[in-house]
Structures are given as C-alpha cells and as structure tokens.
C-alpha cells in the first residue's frame, strides 16, 4: 500500500517538475533553418499563432470539426483529427497549455481539408485547430482532459 502511494506521488511530482521546468527553458534547440521554426519554439499559444500566420486574426468557424477524445487517459498519445469544408491552405493544431503549444501544422496544396495526427499533452488544455483559407484565418477548439501527462518519462 505504501509503495503504491509512493508511486502515485512520484508520478504526480514528476509531472509538476516537467511543467515548472518547461517555463524556464529557453527554446534553444538547433535546426533554426526552418521557416516556421520560431512558431514551433514559441512558448505561448498566442505568440505561436501570431508567428505562424503573420498576425492574422482568427474567427470562430462552424465549418471546422475536431475529432478528439474529451478525456485522454494517456497524454502521450492523443489522437486528433481536423476536418473542414473550407478550402484550407494550412491546418495547425495548437495545445494551449503545452510547453510548446504549436504541435503540428500541415500545408495543403491539392489535398483535402483534413489532417489527422497524434499529439502529446502535458495537462488538460484547450486544443485549437486553426485553418487558413485564402487570406482568412478560422479556428475551432475543444477542451481535452488529460489524466496522465505525456511530457515526463
């Protein structure tokens, strides 16, 4: 029984350490050649979106569907599907409370408005799907509850 308690608390403690550490870490990872590198290295969701889409304002849209679990048991693998009827140029998935909120983006050139992926989530957070269509930016969001974070080891 004691051992079990210890395990539980150490897991919880570990998650906290990771969350606390992430805020202090400078995104110094190499490979700055990528054009969208700064967006991926941003530690604030707003900053990431601003960098990726050049400061465009996003409006809410009912034409974007996010298919994701409401509650993710394992934050290390959270399946996300984004579908839109808009003529999408770019689809980006942002987990607002992740250390680096921009998880992934896809640039579409002939493919349909669809993107599916699996992301890591450190904690319960709003996940926002941004869709750039022409010179407009749209978004839709869903809150995903995470019981076990995916950032620790």
């Amino acid at each position, binding site marked *: 029984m004691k051992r079990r308690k210890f395990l539980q608390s150490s897991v919880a403690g570990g998650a906290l350490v*990771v969350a606390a*550490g*992430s805020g202090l*870490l400078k995104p110094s*990872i*190499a*490979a700055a050649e*990528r054009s*969208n590198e700064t967006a*991926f290295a941003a530690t604030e969701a707003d900053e990431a979106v601003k960098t990726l889409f050049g400061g465009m304002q996003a409006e809410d849209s009912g034409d974007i569907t996010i298919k994701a679990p409401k509650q993710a048991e394992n934050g*290390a*693998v*959270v*399946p996300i*599907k984004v579908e839109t009827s808009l003529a999408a140029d770019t689809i980006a998935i942002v*987990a607002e409370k*992740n*250390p*680096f*909120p*921009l*998880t*992934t*983006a*896809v*640039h*579409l*050139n*002939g*493919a*349909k408005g*669809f*993107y*599916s*992926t*699996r*992301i*890591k989530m450190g904690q319960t957070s709003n996940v926002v799907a941004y869709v750039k269509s022409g010179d407009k930016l749209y978004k839709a969001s869903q809150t995903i509850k995470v019981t076990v974070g*995916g*950032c*620790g*080891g």
Partner: protein
Amino acid sequence: MAERLTKVKVKKLGDKHQVLVLINHPMETGQRKDKKTGEKIPAHFIETITFELNGNKVAEASLGSGVSKNPLTGVELDGAKPGDTIKVSWTDNKGESGGTEATVK
C-alpha cells in the same frame, strides 16, 4: 542507427483517399531526463513529412516535438486514381530522413 520503418496505407473512402503514414521515431522533446544519469535526452523529432501524388507535392506537414512518438499522420486526397503513386518522405532535426511509396488501388 537502425533504419526507421515508414509505412503508408492508402484507404479509399467513397470518392476520396485517406493516406496514413506511420513512422518509427522516438520524437524526443529535449525536455526529458535520463533517469540514470540525470542528463537531458537531446531533442530528436521529425520536422517535415511531404506527401507527393504522382510527383506533385500535395501536402507538407511540419511537426514539432509535441507530436507523439511513432507519429501516425494522415491526409486525404480527392482525385487520386488507381495506379497513382503516393510518395511520402520525412526528415528530422538530426538530418535523418526516410520515406516510402505506395500505389493507389
């Protein structure tokens, strides 16, 4: 370093095709620590995945370290015909790369 397995599955869904790519990759964030040494495990993650249909780039995914390990990435294409070639290639932040091809059935 072991060859990283890349698998592509093309599924027909009505009049469109779904292309699913599974890549064997650790997707290290650079934030995790080695439990034994206490040293940070360096970041190692896929940065781009390109999808080509008959040689035309139709989609390019950019990934950050926030994507799960062994990423499963999917896009949908309309206008793919049986016999068309779908080529998928990827590169990571350490310069490793890989890819594979599949034929639309």
